[in-house]
């Protein structure tokens, strides 16, 4: 039953995009998903920054996993994550000052994104660096995808633009509320409904059955169970 290494990596990468999407399925990292998604551009920069932090932290944690004492793993994970976040914060201020000003404190707050700490605890600290990287890339891309969807909905309806370009023409009256905090909740709620409807339909068709193992796990939120119980009998 053991899959080949590249095959397994591909599975770990792909699961973050949809099946275990951090926002739509695990409902993690909602603070940035609300706070910086009033435009598609902000959502994309935030997604990229988060992906970079996630991949960097996962690689470091995975490489050091045999040296990290169990008792102090959480503070160590946080030190690693915080180092990457501060680096991203400084790099953005140097390279993309406009985006950095728009995102403000939310770049520094990536350190508090439970998605990142969650992946260190649930995956990177238990897997080889190749798989940890694949998992982090997949989760990061899935997070970026979710933020981009929310950002698209909010910018289209709230400003009538996409990436700053007018879409609906001058006669469109923007729904200002979509740019305000309630608009974030509306958009995310609507997208959660759509995504769970799609997931349910797919599940009924049985397209997911191969992914779920013989132990009869129900498809559920982000798999935080030990790795042994997931990929079938090892």
């Amino acid at each position, binding site marked *: 039953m053991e899959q080949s290494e590249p095959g397994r990596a591909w599975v770990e990468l792909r699961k973050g995009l949809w099946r275990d999407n951090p926002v739509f399925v695990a409902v993690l990292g909602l603070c940035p998903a609300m706070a910086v998604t*009033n435009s598609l551009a902000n959502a994309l920069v935030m997604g990229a920054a988060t992906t970079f932090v996630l991949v960097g932290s996962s690689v470091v944690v995975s490489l050091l*996993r*045999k*040296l*990290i*004492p*169990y*008792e*102090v*793993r959480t*503070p*160590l994970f946080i*030190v*690693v994550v*915080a*180092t990457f976040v*501060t*680096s991203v914060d*400084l*790099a953005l*201020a*140097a*390279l993309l*000052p406009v985006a950095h*000003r728009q995102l403000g404190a939310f770049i520094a707050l990536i350190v508090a994104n439970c998605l990142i700490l969650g992946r260190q605890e649930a995956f990177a*600290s*238990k*897997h080889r660096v190749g798989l940890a990287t694949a998992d982090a890339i997949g989760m990061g891309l899935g997070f970026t995808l979710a933020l981009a969807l929310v950002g698209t909905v909010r910018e289209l309806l*709230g*400003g009538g633009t996409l990436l700053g370009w007018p879409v609906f023409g001058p006669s469109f009256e*923007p729904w*200002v509320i979509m*740019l*305000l905090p309630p608009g974030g909740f509306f958009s995310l709620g609507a997208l959660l409904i759509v995504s769970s409807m799609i997931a349910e339909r797919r599940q009924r068709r049985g397209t997911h059955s191969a992914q779920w193992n013989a132990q009869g796990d129900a498809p559920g939120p982000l798999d935080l*169970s*030990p*790795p*042994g*119980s997931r990929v079938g009998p090892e």
Partner: protein
Amino acid sequence: MHGAANVGERGDLAPGHASSLRLVATLALAGFFSGVVLCGVYLASAPRIASNRAAALERAVLEVVPGAVAFSLMVAGADGRLTPADSSERIADVDPQVPEPARVYATRDARGERVGYAIEAQGPGFMDTIRLLYGLDPATGTVIGLRILASRETPGLGDKIMYDPAFVESFRALSVEPEIVAVTRRPRRRSNEVDCIGGATISSRAVVQIVAGSSARWLPLLAGRSRDGTE
């Protein structure tokens, strides 16, 4: 399977019951390496960040004083006299030691003549502090330009203070005396009046109050200075 699951939870992490010394040493080492990395990133990015900030300041100063091509930072002393803060005409970075209300940017046009001052001011907005930069021409006693540097006003409503054409335009020629006032429900009639933006009255008033307060404080100082002809 249960026993295996327990081991699985711990995964590859080093076994538990490590000595306190080991825990402390590991954390100290992690903190040390993190510090080294951050020092490197900071040193690599600091010049770029400073030059970005200087470029943004330069754009803003030259925008609020039409016709200006160069500027220098002046500092007001306790006696109200202005002295150049820096010998160079261009400032690499604002000296954080100089409190904001005490500094102005003196500008010159292409012929080297003084064309006005750019002044930073801030005050409470609807959501958060509004920071802005405005141009002041002491010779005519008028505000000649406005740019919002930082604000967190409501998107789509209050943030119109940044781009509403009529509102921004009214700060291109605005008499400072008598005191600038914000008007609602009727178009501005006098040169010291600013029309509030519909739906953004509080934010408009906040901007007007910040500019009015700051310009009333600075105008006597700067006007006296240009009359003396002292540079």
